[in-house]
């Protein structure tokens, strides 16, 4: 299919995916029109858009360089912040709460994490793509393809989680805030305002509190704390893999988080 070369045609379209063709990278675009991106996950927005057969059949495809050309022609807002996370730790909640304020000042980074055994229990029940052996290049997690299909699933999940936590520790700097799941939701209106450099008025705080009472991944449901239920789901295999591979890194994250908290209050 021919490539789109006029960036003016990309108004109301957003990037859908990157793909490779003969060693070059290209962008597949999705028409979103005027709809706001309020779904818990972007792929839900994309899926809804692509149910319209026109959006499925007629899609712009451009060289990756078009992204730079588009930015020059129509500069967009710079990113205000990034939320990195271990998964199943409230990152969707934070995104929904922040989106409710349209508050994206500055570009600081949050690394959000949770008790690793709870993350493992959740992932073993319902895997994210990165937790499916072979779905993502194993070398990214310091493994090879033979390893990932040989090892018990608990070990694979623990190794992926350990890699994420290890990278978070390696890239810690003054621009990063460490946040534990158990600090949510209150940390969003107690720790984040100062970190992002914003003031939240009372109506804003109330909107965030309302958003926090809903299930972030399924806003039609009320939020239910599943910490105890996750703890009951920790098997011996999960416990062993977690203690051997992830717990030491989790403790380092907690120590770093505590040390930073003490520095801020000094």
């Amino acid at each position, binding site marked *: *299919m*021919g490539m*789109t070369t*006029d960036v003016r*045609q990309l108004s109301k379209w957003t990037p*859908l*995916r*990157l*793909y*490779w063709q003969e060693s070059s*990278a290209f962008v597949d675009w999705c*028409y979103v029109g005027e709809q706001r991106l309020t779904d818990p996950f972007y792929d839900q927005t994309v899926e809804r858009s*692509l*149910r*319209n*057969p*026109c*959006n*499925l*059949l*007629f*899609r*712009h495809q451009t060289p990756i360089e078009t992204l730079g050309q588009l930015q020059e022609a129509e500069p967009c807002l710079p990113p205000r912040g990034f939320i990195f996370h271990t998964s199943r730790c409230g990152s969707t909640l934070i995104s929904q709460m922040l989106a409710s304020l349209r508050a994206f000042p500055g570009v600081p980074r949050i690394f959000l994490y949770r008790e690793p055994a709870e993350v493992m229990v959740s992932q073993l029940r319902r895997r994210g793509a990165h937790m499916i052996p072979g*779905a993502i290049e194993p070398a990214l997690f310091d493994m090879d393809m033979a390893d990932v299909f040989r090892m018990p699933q608990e070990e694979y999940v623990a190794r992926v989680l350990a890699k994420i936590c290890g990278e978070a520790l390696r890239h810690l700097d003054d621009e990063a805030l460490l946040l534990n799941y158990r600090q949510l939701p209150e940390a969003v209106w107690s720790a984040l305002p100062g970190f992002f450099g914003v003031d939240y008025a009372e109506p804003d705080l109330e909107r965030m509190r309302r958003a926090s009472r809903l299930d972030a991944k399924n806003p039609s449901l009320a939020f239910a704390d599943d910490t105890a239920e996750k703890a009951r789901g920790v098997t011996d295999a999960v416990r062993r893999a977690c203690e051997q591979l992830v717990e030491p890194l989790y403790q380092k994250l907690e120590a770093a988080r505590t040390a930073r908290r003490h520095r801020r209050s000094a």
Partner: protein
Amino acid sequence: MSLEDLEQFQQIVLRDASLQAALRETADREAFIELTVRLGRESGCVFTHEEVAQALRARRRALLERWV
């Protein structure tokens, strides 16, 4: 030739917001395919109902492939 005509029509549509709007209004798959064939013919591009249906299936399959 007709698959090439479909690709040519895809480019015509992507350059024409009014054609996009007309096609986007038709969410029903069968009605959309019929409209696509008709508008394609009016633009000088000739392809069949089945070719459009195949293109839709191919597009859906391609999206199920791994993301980069």
